[in-house]
């Protein structure tokens, strides 16, 4: 360890000139796009809303005791029998849409982030294994990835949920199964390039163990493209979960995510009660678009080919 740190200092400061830290440069590069900054701020607000949903909501939308069926399907701005103002209207069970959306964001973000995280771990481990060991293991793993990616994500998720049934854990399994292949492919691609670089050779000469080589040296250098894929995949996962829940094969009715809220409003839409489907859709849209905006900017900032 000591040898490593001493070496680093010497290199990074050869003429005693002060360098801008990589993190600083990254932040200033990222802030060059105003749209991405707006996107990031929206994401932060949405995450805060999701975390503090119980404090921000006027009622607990999952607690049936607090709901009054008489308050059902009130248009935006109406006041309920108990004196709550439904700023975004109420759904068929008298649930305040705004509170419903806050809690729904919680479920949607939670499921999206959780599945992306598990898929990231599984996918990148397999991708690293494939790239590091090569040969048969590589071709076997990548063949499975190719086959999986030749089927559309909706179809794979549909197959799994048709077999497994509804539930938060099941939809996470389905989303992980859909996503891992993207991570595996990205990591393998990067790792194949990184593996041949000199620092890896140097590390190998020090006779470090395989796991240390892979996790301490190879993985950190594969991170930039991986971060971009994570952002894009979280957005995909949220959209896919909403779609599956909308179809009624994703989350159970007791824990409405945004997709389920939209589905609840579907039958009332034909009679002109737009708000039950409209507002959760806007929340979903804001979330997905902001994540994509941030992802786009990250791709530009982290892509070494685009850096001058």
């Amino acid at each position, binding site marked *: 360890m000591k040898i490593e740190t001493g070496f680093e200092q010497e290199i990074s400061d050869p003429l005693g000139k002060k360098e801008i830290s990589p993190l600083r440069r990254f932040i200033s590069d990222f802030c060059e796009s105003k749209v991405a900054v707006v996107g990031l701020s929206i994401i932060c607000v949405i995450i805060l809303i999701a975390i503090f949903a119980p404090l921000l909501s006027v009622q607990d939308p999952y607690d049936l005791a607090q709901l009054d069926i008489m308050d059902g399907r009130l248009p935006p701005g109406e006041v309920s029998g108990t004196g709550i103002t439904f700023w975004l209207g109420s759904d068929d069970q008298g649930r305040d849409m705004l509170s419903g959306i806050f809690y729904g964001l919680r479920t949607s973000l939670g499921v999206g982030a959780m599945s992306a995280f598990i898929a990231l771990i599984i996918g990148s481990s397999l991708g690293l294994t494939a790239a590091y060991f090569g040969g048969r293991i590589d071709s076997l793993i990548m063949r499975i990835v190719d086959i999986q990616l030749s089927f559309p994500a*909706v179809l794979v998720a549909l197959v799994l949920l*048709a*077999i497994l049934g509804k539930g938060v854990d099941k939809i996470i399994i389905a989303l992980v199964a859909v996503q891992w292949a993207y991570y595996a492919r990205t990591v393998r691609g990067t790792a194949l390039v990184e593996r041949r670089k000199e620092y890896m050779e140097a590390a190998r000469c020090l006779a470090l163990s395989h796991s240390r080589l892979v996790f301490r040296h190879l993985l950190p250098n594969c991170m930039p493209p991986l971060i971009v894929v994570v952002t894009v995949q979280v957005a995909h996962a949220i959209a896919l979960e909403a779609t599956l829940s909308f179809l009624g094969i994703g989350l159970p009715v007791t824990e409405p995510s945004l997709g389920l809220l939209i589905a609840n409003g579907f039958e009332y839409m034909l009679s002109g009660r737009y708000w039950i489907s409209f507002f959760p859709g806007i929340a979903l849209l804001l979330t997905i678009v902001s994540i994509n905006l941030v992802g786009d900017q990250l791709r530009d900032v982290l892509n070494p080919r685009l850096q001058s």
Partner: protein
Amino acid sequence: MIAFLIRRLTQSGLVLLVMSLLVFIGVFAIGNPVDILINPDADQEEIERAIKALGLDKPMWEQYWIFLVNALQGDLGRSFVFNIPALQLIWQRMPATLELAGFAMFLSIFLGIPLGMIAGLKPDSWVGRTIMSGSILGFSLPTFWVGLMMILLFAVYLGWLPASGRGETVDVFGVPVSFLTLNGLSHILLPAINLALFKLSLTIRLARAGTREAMLMDYVKFARAKGLSNARVIMVHVFKNIMIPVVTVLGLELGNVIAFSVVTETIFSWPGMGKLIIDSINVLDRPVIVAYLLMTVSMFIVINLVVDIIYSMLDPRVRLGDMKS
């Protein structure tokens, strides 16, 4: 070529086998097959007869074998709801799905290419910018929600187009189709646009990038130098050259359109296979679920194989031996 075909066919067979095993384990081993495969309304004697007939008293591997042999003979059980063979039910619903998917593809090609070319010819004009922003929206908007909003706008508020169903159909070679009657056309328009939205955005992007690239090429300069009209240069020379990437990508996306029609069909109550599977999952009509899953996976394997072969024939630069999936 033959080596490639053999390898691909072996691989396809393997995928199908794994898939059938997965479905078998899912349906037969996790759940109780008696509940799943036999109509719950049947009496005790009938249940016992069915257990014998389905071989549920035999060991697991033998059951799987029976399942496989039956599946190969096209026997995937009878639907509880419709009381006809599950496979037949799916065959009945398939034309509706294929029609919707085909119409959506048609829309995305015939709207996407001209729009993309306009955006590519005038990238900095407001028209070009509007088209591009539209295509970015098409990528990010959740398709199912857009479908709902389209119903809200065009069916509920404006009342221009119907929100659900297939409308009048005409039989063409014994297969009912909607797009040949005016009423059917008005029914297919909204779902097809909804299903096409994503592909449309993709086509616009491809056509725009292709046009911008082609406009800088020597052959365009040469055509101009020959004194050809602007219209001819664009319609003949540029158009031909942007078709290659567009056709390739859209071919690969055909499968995606069919898979995603599950969502569109549910929104617009389009009576295709997609709506059938969602309905079957909701009422636990398991034979239909099993049949649908095996059918679609086989269909995808065939589509992937055909696309790969066509691709290699269109573009001789692609060597089949190098292709992976």
